[in-house]
């Protein structure tokens, strides 16, 4: 737990954002936005970067494959655009916002485990050009997402 918080602090320092310390294992970074399907998004002007959260990678297990979308493809908020494979399961990755894919993290083809070891940094999955900046308002902030994860885990 302490090691994970140190890792998160280093990531946060690099990204120049603050970290929320939570009572349970997964790390949530402030200044990111989160979807209920456990993807995170970082907005930078009219571009957004996304990936899956530390909570998601922890529950999924070791990721052995990432299916990436084609460049130029449109993605829609809440809809699947790719998948990760872990523990004999393919799990959809859903887009937290709508837009056009402008960059994919090709490194994940050879090193899918980055999704586990560095979900908010080296394990980013795609970057998009936003088509509707207002959609970000529908996402959760770090506090709401932390609570969401706690409630989800508590019911199982």
């Amino acid at each position, binding site marked *: 737990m302490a090691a994970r918080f140190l890792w998160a602090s280093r990531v946060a320092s690099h990204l120049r954002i603050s970290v929320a310390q939570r009572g349970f294992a997964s790390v949530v970074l402030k200044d990111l936005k989160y979807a209920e*399907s456990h993807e995170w998004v970082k907005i930078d002007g009219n571009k957004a970067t996304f990936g899956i959260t530390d909570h998601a990678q922890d*529950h*999924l*297990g070791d990721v*052995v*494959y990432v*299916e990436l979308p084609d460049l130029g493809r449109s993605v829609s908020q*809440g809809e*699947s655009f790719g*998948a990760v*494979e*872990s*523990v*004999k*399961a*393919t*799990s*959809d990755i*859903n887009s937290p916002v709508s837009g056009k894919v402008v960059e994919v993290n090709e490194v994940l083809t050879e090193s899918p485990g980055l999704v586990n070891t560095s979900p908010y940094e080296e394990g980013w999955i795609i970057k998009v050009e936003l088509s509707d900046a207002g959609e970000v308002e529908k996402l959760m902030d770090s506090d709401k997402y932390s609570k969401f994860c706690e409630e*989800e*885990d508590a019911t*199982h």
Partner: protein
Amino acid sequence: MFLFSRFFEELIFTRRFSGKSSKGFKMSISRANDLRLPLMNLIRLKGTPILEQLHLEERLLRASSENWCIVNDGTNVPTIVMGMSGKPSQLLELGPVMKDQIPVIKRFTGGGTVIVDKSTLFVSLICNKDDVPGVQPYPRSVMAWSGSLYGEVFGGVNGFQLRENDYVFGDRKFGGNAQSIIKNRWIHHTSFLWDYNVRNMAYLKLPSRVPQYRLERDHTEFVCRMKDYIERSDFIEKTVKAVGKQFAMKQVNLEDIDSYAKGEHVKSTRLLTMEELQEAMSGTTQSA
């Protein structure tokens, strides 16, 4: 309506005449709870081609909002089925596969490679996450649930367990399973090795990712035949019964599927072409 009338009749009778009205009331509530089990549609197939079965499953997962149990008693011809990320050059003895024209499918779920035929038994479960309380839509949680379900089917027979995500008797695997998880639903499907042709196993290479308990054994030393442990019809009926303890089962005919699954959906399962297999063998492509 008839069932609810019966419930209230029983409730009134037990409260008036049982002398233990509290206990009688609780028993009637238990029966009423059975009426509120989520619905599971059951499709029974026999000898359906595995490609057709997988297309059906992907359609029901993505384009239906109901729960499904699909049982296919054997497939028509020997067929190799790889997981989503499978690479033929790494997993298959491509020379013999192409020479003998064995079909190769890439399916929409994760996991490894199997060769299936008329002796294989298939059971697939497609569930809404909210209809399986206590199970999170993540692979290990789903497998813990399915392991428990099949534990009921095999009832402690010969060391049945879910071992490193495989269904085994002792240290021998008899069932290959895989899953696909979308936002609010998931599928867990299994190919059970009722029997198999040793010659068919020769089409498969030893995979690079193997469970620890495999201990470098080749296919014939690692797997076992389910027919040595349970009768075929017994297994099917016990499986349906075990599922029926958690769901209210309703038989559905394949011809009626269109009314349950409408609209377009992502289609990932496909048959690899001979050209793709040839390119994989010559090492000219990374994608197939």
